[in-house]
């Protein structure tokens, strides 16, 4: 009620250059066919951003449909158990559809409407972006096709059903490793052929300009709220702000509005089975700059520039790149990096479940794992703000399997 609109800052701060570059990263490395549509999109985005009625409708939907502002929750029981810094959770898990992704699809969905597009497409890894896209497509009565790697369809089955129930078509992608990057390739192929009628809703702060900027702006509500809530609830800003990084949308959403404050910003990458081998998805910690999916950024690639297969237990982090602005902030020294392995993420998942009664998404569990580790070495009057980017319901099968329980058997019988 009486939700305070003033916490939302409509100015575009730290904008990229005209070509969409954040320092040397970003840009518009796209096929010629897409350059026209991208220019059209850019113009439409900037015009809509200045349009008060567009912004009012976006905020109205974020509040009345998505459920913003999401709470800021002091995880007292967890913090006490760790005995170090206070861990504060930004509860994006409480948004409609269960992850931050919807902040962005509401924005892009409205923009698609404004541009008169009748069809949207999306790529998805964890399925959260696909669900969020299918959701706004249903609401705005647009046709919706979602590309999803077959491996991801398996690990995030409930999200596949959800998309179908929302009226979207989920198109399995078999090429490559059947995960997020392959889905992105397929979506780009679709868009190249359909760009005149179709709006491509990219799910993270990656892709050719203006996507990284646009998606960041749509997610900035996370950090803007969190900043205001911290001041209101605790009378101060946190010492550290942390988020997991797949493409980086929940990270930029939280961190961008805090970057001008004296706060340590930390991005947590997926270390999979460990950073030593190839079974991880830590693009910044273990990769180097390269060009993929329309932008120049940190990538996991071999010596020849071939993109590597990645591994993470969490489908949403299983991507060999990262948003270009994160790469720029990292190189500029404004962003610290950390990582969590599959096992550490699972442990954090259990720990939060048992101490706070919250089942986090496996993606978010990576940020939590790093926060818990960091908190242990800090004092109880310090504060770590963690983006709880999504809820773990979509990960039940994965987690039960790991914890050695056969899901179906548990359902059928055991005490």
């Amino acid at each position, binding site marked *: 009620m009486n939700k305070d609109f003033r916490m939302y800052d409509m100015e575009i701060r730290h904008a990229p250059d005209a070509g969409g570059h954040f320092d040397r990263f970003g840009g518009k490395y796209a*096929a*010629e*066919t897409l*350059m026209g549509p991208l220019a059209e999109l850019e113009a439409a985005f900037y015009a809509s951003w200045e349009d008060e009625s567009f912004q009012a409708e976006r905020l109205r939907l974020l509040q009345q449909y998505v459920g913003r502002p999401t709470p800021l929750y002091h995880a007292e029981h967890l913090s006490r158990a760790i005995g170090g810094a206070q861990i504060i959770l930004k509860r994006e898990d409480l948004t409609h559809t269960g992850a931050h992704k919807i902040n962005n699809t509401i924005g892009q969905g409205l923009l698609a409407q404004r541009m008169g597009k009748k069809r949207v497409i999306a790529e998805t890894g964890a399925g959260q972006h696909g669900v969020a896209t299918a959701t706004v497509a249903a609401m705005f009565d647009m046709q919706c096709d979602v590309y999803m790697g077959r491996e991801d369809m398996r690990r995030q089955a409930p999200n596949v059903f959800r998309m179908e129930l929302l009226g979207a078509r989920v198109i399995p992608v078999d090429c490559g490793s059947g995960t997020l990057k392959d889905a992105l390739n397929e979506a780009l192929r679709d868009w190249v*052929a359909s760009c005149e009628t179709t709006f491509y809703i990219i799910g993270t702060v990656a892709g050719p300009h203006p996507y990284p900027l646009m998606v960041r702006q749509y997610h900035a509500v996370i950090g803007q709220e969190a900043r205001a809530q911290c001041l209101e609830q605790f009378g101060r800003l946190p010492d550290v702000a942390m988020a997991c990084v797949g493409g980086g949308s929940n990270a930029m959403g939280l961190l961008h509005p805090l970057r001008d404050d004296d706060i340590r910003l930390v991005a947590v990458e997926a270390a999979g089975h460990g950073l030593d081998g190839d079974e991880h998805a830590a693009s910044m910690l273990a990769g180097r700059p390269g*060009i993929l999916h329309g932008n120049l950024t940190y990538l996991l690639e071999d010596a020849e520039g071939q993109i590597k297969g990645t591994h993470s237990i969490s489908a949403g982090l299983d991507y060999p790149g990262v948003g270009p602005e994160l790469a720029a902030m990292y190189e500029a020294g404004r962003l610290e990096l950390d990582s969590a392995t599959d096992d550490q993420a699972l442990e954090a998942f259990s720990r939060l479940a048992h101490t706070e009664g919250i089942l986090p998404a496996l993606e978010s569990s990576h940020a939590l794992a790093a926060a818990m580790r960091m908190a242990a070495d800090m004092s109880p009057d310090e504060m770590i703000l963690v983006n709880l980017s999504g809820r773990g319901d979509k990960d039940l099968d994965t987690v039960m399997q790991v914890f050695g329980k056969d899901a179906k058997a548990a359902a059928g019988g055991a005490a």
Partner: protein
Amino acid sequence: MSLDRLQSCFERCKAESRAALVGYLTAGDPNPATSEKLLHVLAKSADIIEIGMPFSDPMADGPSIQAASERSLAAGTKMHDVFHLCLSVRKARPEAGIVLMGYANVAYAMGYEHFAEQAALAGADGVLIVDIPPEESGDFDAALKAHALHSIRLVAPTSSVQRRELAAKTASGFIYYVSLTGITGAEMGAVSDIRTQVDSLHNQSGLPICVGFGIKTVEQARSVAAFADGVVIGSHFVSCIAEHAGNESAMLAALDKTCAAMRAAMGNGSKP
């Protein structure tokens, strides 16, 4: 010098009142050894040979060329193999045009300067990188220029007048007009539309205009050859490799036959 070579290709074809046949194969597909033989077969009929540099994520390509990249990489093809194949074709056909085609990251990973140097040493005449549009091509074009390599540009049906001008201004060698809004291997657009576009491009630029993406039949090739300076055939040639997988001689024979047919469709003497 190579700048001349592409130009001479088109001039030679013009003299023969026909369009140039621009043939594409992915280097190293299905493996480097067979690929070399295939490229030599292609080089018999094609005026300009496009050598695809395999990439793990060929997002502008349809299933056929995607699969070619996958086969090539699975066979262990590295960039030195690509350059070796290029040089092999160059040696066999000193007068042919050779264009390296591929994705930005492969060149970026080598360093643009080193890449351009190697490409030039391998005898390439030009380079076409699908995902380096004019906006991002400053450093890359500089590197190509330093090694006297053409920077080939794509123009698409969705390209605005301004973008066509930009392409005309920044391209050299030829302009590659994309005959459909989509990926390689899809269905070609209406010939009359393509003709209108190519005619207007001819008005904007003195460069030769080649048309490609989706040309699969001799009839399509012939109809496009009637007004374009060159006709690019890619997926159609590549499909010979998948169709005859495991049987190298049949593969080579099939490619030879289809190349010859396409070469014939370029319309010797029939061009106005």
